[in-house]
C-alpha cells in the first residue's frame, strides 16, 4: 500500500508502534534478506520475494533435513510456512509437533498440481515462505515443463513478496536468484545424531544469482 495515501495520524501511529516494538513490525525494505535460522540458507542472503533452488541430486543428500529445518524457522513475528508437497513425501512425525502448528501442508500427486498450488499461494501473498518440494521427481520429467512456469512463479513472488524455495533433483531453474546444491554427506550412523548438528554439517555449494530481476517493494 502506498503510504502517501494514508492519513498523517495513521503514519505517525505506525511509526510510534515501530519504534516501541521494532521486532514486531519488520518493515520490508529493498534488498532485505530472509532470515530462517538455517546457516546454509541464510548465508546466501536471499532477498524476500526471490526464488531459491535447492538441488539434491543424490538420494539422502539432506533435502529432508533442510526442509525440516526450514519448517522450524523462527522469526520476530510468528509466520506461517506453506509446503507444497509435490510427491506427497512429507512425514509429519519427522518434525517436531510444535512446528506443525504453523505449517500449511498441500499434498499433491502430480507436478502440475504442485505448480498450480504454488502459483495460488504466491498470488495470495498471505504466507511469506513457500517450500515447493519436487525432489523425488525424475529430473527429465521436470525438464519437460516449459521454463515460463518458473518465470511466472518468480514474477508472482516478486509481486507478493513471498519467498519460494524449490527443491529439485537437478539444476533446472534458470531464473532462480540463488541455487544451493546439497552434496551427499549422510551415513547410516547419522540417524542417532542431533538434528541441529546434522543440519550444520550439511555440505552445500552455492551458485550466485543468475537472474537479477526487478525487486518489488
Amino acid at each position, binding site marked *: 500500500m502506498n503510504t502517501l495515501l494514508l492519513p498523517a495520524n495513521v503514519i505517525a501511529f505506525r511509526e510510534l508502534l515501530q519504534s516501541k516494538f521494532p521486532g514486531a513490525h519488520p518493515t520490508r525494505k529493498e534488498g532485505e534478506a530472509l532470515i530462517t535460522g538455517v546457516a546454509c540458507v541464510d548465508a546466501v542472503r536471499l532477498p524476500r520475494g526471490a526464488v531459491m533452488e535447492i538441488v539434491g541430486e543424490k*538420494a539422502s543428500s539432506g533435502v529432508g533435513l533442510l526442509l525440516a529445518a526450514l519448517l522450524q524457522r523462527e522469526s520476530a513475528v510468528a509466520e506461517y510456512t506453506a509446503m507444497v508437497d509435490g510427491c506427497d513425501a512429507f512425514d509429519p512425525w519427522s518434525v517436531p509437533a510444535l512446528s506443525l502448528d504453523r505449517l500449511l501442508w*498441500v499434498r499433491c500427486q502430480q507436478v502440475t498440481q504442485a505448480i498450480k498450488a504454488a502459483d*495460488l499461494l504466491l498470488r495470495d501473498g498471505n504466507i511469506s515462505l513457500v517450500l515447493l518440494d519436487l525432489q523425488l521427481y525424475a529430473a527429465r520429467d521436470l525438464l519437460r515443463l516449459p521454463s515460463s512456469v518458473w518465470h511466472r512463479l518468480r514474477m508472482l513472488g516478486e509481486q507478493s513478496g513471498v519467498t519460494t524455495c524449490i527443491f529439485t533433483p537437478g539444476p533446472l531453474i534458470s531464473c532462480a536468484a540463488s541455487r544451493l546444491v546439497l552434496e551427499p554427506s549422510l551415513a547410516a550412523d547419522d540417524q542417532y545424531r542431533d538434528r541441529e548438528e546434522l543440519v550444520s554439517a550439511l555440505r552445500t555449494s552455492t551458485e550466485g544469482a543468475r537472474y537479477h530481476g526487478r525487486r518489488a517493494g
Partner: protein
Amino acid sequence: MFAAIHLPCFQFQAITLGGAAGPAALLDEVVTGTPLAREQACVLQVNAQAERLLVHPGMTASMARARCATLQFLYRDAGAELAAQEVLLQCSSNRTPFYESTSPGLCVLDLSSLPGVKGAELAYGRAICEELARSKLTARVGFARRADLAILAAHTAAPIRVMLGEEVDRACLGALPLEVLQPAWQTAEVFALWGVKTVGDLCKLPRAGVTERLGREGMLLWDLATGGRDRLLKLVRPVPGYRVEEDFEHSIECLEPLLFILRRHLQSLCDRLGATWRVAAAAVVELHFEDGSRHLRELRIAEPTRDVELLFRVIHTALEGVSAAAPIRGVVLEFRAVTPAGSQSLLFERTLKDPNRFAETLAHLEAVVGSGNVGRVRLLPSRRLDAFAVTGFFENEKSTVPLRALEESTCSGLPLRRLRPAPVTQVFLVDRKPAAFRNARYSQAVTACDGPWLVSGDWWDVTQAWRREIWIVTGEDGGLYQLARHRNGEWVMEGLLG
C-alpha cells in the same frame, strides 16, 4: 400505558383486504364440501352492506341467501389470515419491541417506555391506523393504563379510544358483547342460560358468586369485564433468521443464473445481519437437484464479516467446482451469525494479512489437489505409519496427541521422506538380513543395514492389529532406505532417510 390494536372482522378483512364489492359473508366451510354442507355452513362475519340487508353472523348460508339473493359467499383462508397477522405484528414491532400477539387480529403494545406518547394518544393512534390502511386493513386502537382494559377500549373505538379516567369510561364498555372476552364455549353457554349477553351484564353480577359457580375462568372473565388486572405481556421475540430458501420455477443448469440469485439473497441476508449488528462466521449453501439429490456445503468465513462482495466471492469459489447429474431445482442459503470481534486477537500472532482472501485461496487449493489434502497436520496417538490427520487451516483445535508423545516427537536423527503408497519391494536376504532390494523405481545392493526394529500396535483387536519389522539399509548409491516387513511377510519400501 398500553395500546391495543384491533382489526375488526379480522378473517373477513384478511380475505378481502377492503376490496369486496357488494354484500358479502364469510363462511367457515371449505368450498369442496357437499352442496348440503355448503347450505348449512355458518356465517361468521359479514360486511356493512350485508348487515344492512339483515344478514347476521350465526345464520346458515341458505338463510343468508334468502335475505339477499346477490350475497357473495367467501371462505376462510388460513394463508391470508397469517399474512394479515404478519402485517399487524410488523406494525407493532415498528412502534415498540415490547408487544404481545394476543389473538388473531389483536395486538397489545407496552408504551410505558416510549417518550412522547402520553398526551398525544390520538395522533399516535391515527398514525397506526394510517400505517395499516396502507396495507388495506382497517384498525381500531384503544389506549388504557392496563393491557386488558386497552383491549376492551379497542373493541369500542371508532377508530381510536383513550380510556384514562377508568370510572368515567367504563360505562361505554357495558354494551360490548360478551364474546370480546373470549370465554370458553361451555362458559359462554352458561352465560347464555343466565341471560348475560354483554360485558355490562357480567359486571353487574357479584364476583364471589361468579367465582363460586364458574371457578377460576369465571373470576378471570369478571376481572376482565371490570377492567382487568395488571399483568405482564407475553412478548413476541422474533428469532432473527439468516436463512433463505427458494424453489425455482424453471430449473437451472449452469452457474451464472444461480450466482445471480444467490447474490440477491446475499444482499438481503447481509442487511438482516447489519440490522442486528452481527456478522457471518459461516455460510451454508444447499443445492437441491431435480433427481432428488442434494449438495450441502458449509463454508467457514475466516474473518467473520457481512461484506456482500467478499461473501459472494467465497460462495462463488466454492460452487465453481460443483458438478451434478441433474439441473438445480432449488437453493438454500443460511448464515451462522456471530457478534463481531471487538479487537485484534493477538498483537504478535496474526500474520495473515487478509484471512478471507487466504480462505478463498485454500478453497482454490482444495479444488486443485482434492478435499482433505490441504490444511494443518494433527498427529494421532499411534505408532502406525501415517498416523496423522489433515484438518482445515482455520480449525483451531489443539493436537490430540498427549504431551508425552509431543515431547517424543521433538525429533533427532534423519527425517523420513515417505513413498506413498509404499511400493512392494523384493528383498534378498543373506543371514536373515537384507542384502539387496528391488522395486519398480529403486534397485540397489545393500552395503550396510541396521535393524530390525519391531513395532506393533492394536494387538488387542484382531481385526486392527498391525506389526512391522523395520530395517534401515544403505544402498550402493549411498542413499539410506527404510524397508519394512509386514506380518504377512510382504516387504515394502517406506521411504528414504535424509
